[in-house]
């Protein structure tokens, strides 16, 4: 019980500080994902077009994903110095794989007959992309952004090591303080909460972007009514 009341006291006394870090933390993650989307979605579309590039690009993104977060930050710090920008760049790198991979999968999985249909109707390549491929793969691309955002919210906590702030700061304080469990939780709970909320919101977005709303792919399932 002590723990909960300690936690509440911390929130009451440091409300604005926690909120500030929460916001900062979220912005770092969001920027990381945003920049990754700006780069990753076009790259995904590109490798969906040129299948030979896909294995190279995807394995590169895979390699990035396997580097431990702490090591990545340390290396980037050597090059870019301390601060928020370095963290945002690291988050950008981690977001690339899910975004590129989902864009690639989404575009590749668009029914080939639909693309041929569009082509045969006289759509230009650009029109096929804009009017057929992207609308039909949007929900899969969104799923990539969702994964990326959840990953970056987690990784952003260690940004504190290179002085970027965020909720990781509060957790670090807790580990340094004597008897700091409540403080650790004061940092960890908002982080987890943020990840869950982001996941739920993005999930909702993903569903609302589904090309076919009802889960019934109705070819030949209904009886002919007016033969």
């Amino acid at each position, binding site marked *: 019980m002590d723990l909960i009341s300690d936690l509440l006291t911390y929130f009451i006394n440091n409300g604005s500080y926690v909120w500030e870090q929460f916001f900062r933390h979220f912005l770092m993650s969001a920027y990381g994902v945003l920049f990754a989307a700006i780069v990753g979605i076009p790259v995904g579309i590109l490798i969906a077009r040129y299948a030979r590039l896909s294995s190279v690009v995807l394995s590169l993104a895979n390699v990035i994903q396997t580097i431990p977060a702490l090591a990545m930050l340390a290396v980037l710090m050597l090059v870019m110095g301390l601060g928020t920008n370095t963290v945002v760049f690291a988050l950008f790198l981690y977001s690339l794989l899910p975004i590129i991979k989902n864009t690639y999968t989404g575009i590749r999985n668009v*029914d080939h*007959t*639909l693309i*041929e*249909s*569009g*082509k*045969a*109707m*006289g*759509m*230009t390549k650009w*029109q096929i992309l804009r*009017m*057929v491929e992207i*609308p*039909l793969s949007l929900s899969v691309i969104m799923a990539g952004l969702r994964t990326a955002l959840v990953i970056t919210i987690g990784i952003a906590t260690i940004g504190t090591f290179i002085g970027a702030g965020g909720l990781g700061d509060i957790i670090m304080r807790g580990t340094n303080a004597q008897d700091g469990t409540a403080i650790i939780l004061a940092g960890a709970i908002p982080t987890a909460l943020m990840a869950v909320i982001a996941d739920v919101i993005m999930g909702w977005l993903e569903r609302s972007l589904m*090309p*076919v*709303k*009802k889960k*019934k*792919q*109705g*070819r*030949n399932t*209904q*009886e*002919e*009514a*007016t*033969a």
Partner: protein
Amino acid sequence: MLKFEHVSKKYKGGKIAVSNLNLEFKKGEFIVFIGPSGCGKTTTMKMINRLIEPTEGKIFINGEDIMEKDPVKLRREIGYVIQQIGLFPHMTIQENISLVLKLLKWPEEKRKKRAEELLSLVDMTPDYLERYPHELSGGQQQRIGVLRALAADQPLILMDEPFGALDPITRDALQDEFKNLQKKLDKTIVFVTHDMDEALKLADKIVILRDGQLVQCGTPEEILREPADEFVEEFIGKERLVQAKPNITTVEQIMNAHPVTITSDEQLSNAITVMKTNRVDSLLVIDKEGVLEGYIDVEAIDQNRKKAKSVADILNPDTFSVQKDALVRDTIRQILKKGLKYVPVVDEQKHLVGIVTRTSLVDIVYDSIWGDEELERAQ
């Protein structure tokens, strides 16, 4: 309208899909490409709108070489319907139908009106416009697929087994509907199928392909009557050839080659004797060379018994006759329509060669009912 000149398609690796195709079609023709799978029929069709580009030869539409046109512009002038229907699931029916119009930059208002107009062609109500493809049955979806190809009033429409994935009843209904539509709108259709029944039902011209080669090109009747080789015969199927027999046999094959005749210079009394011995009520009159001149019947003899002496006096020259290579089907229609008792059969020089009577019709009916069994017994 549509012309193929020495068209060939070779794929990388040397596989020849189509080789040296020469074809020409008129406007408003319903052309069916047919053949076993891998015969190059779809490839040939796709070359028309440059989804596949020919390696050699030229294709002309209305005298224009398609390779010199912008492919995007070319495709907007050609309708396209595929077996998988290919409606865009994220667009409403209206958006689907009027997509080409959108590409052609028609204003929204006009697009909607056109979509409604088109829906009424297939007896669907305007409330379908706001629905999505997955809410429609397979048959309705393909109707929309066809309308989409008609939207910009394209004079030429390509169809790749459009009714192949539908159940037989829906398919039949759609074939009838579409054939009517095609006649009404006077479109040139290139239709690919492997279903001979469908081809015979819809086509004005059938093009039979095998291994990328043209085997035969002709009207359904020509192909049924004179299959080019064993492959075509087999492809049409024995059963269909037998069924098609009354439609394709000529009168020469069923006529009675020994009609009762008389020459025009004979006496009437002789004519009556001939009638009596042969137990007929009329005689075909011919001259010395055997050229048909007319007929006399017992009524005419009875009425003119006193005045007339020779056959020539009462000869009725107004005789309906058919050529020996006329189709039985057409002849039967004439017999039934004109209420004739018989039809004399003549050759090119009007020489009488035989006669088709109502008894001959009985033979045909008998054949079509029991003919199959006899054929089986014979095998």
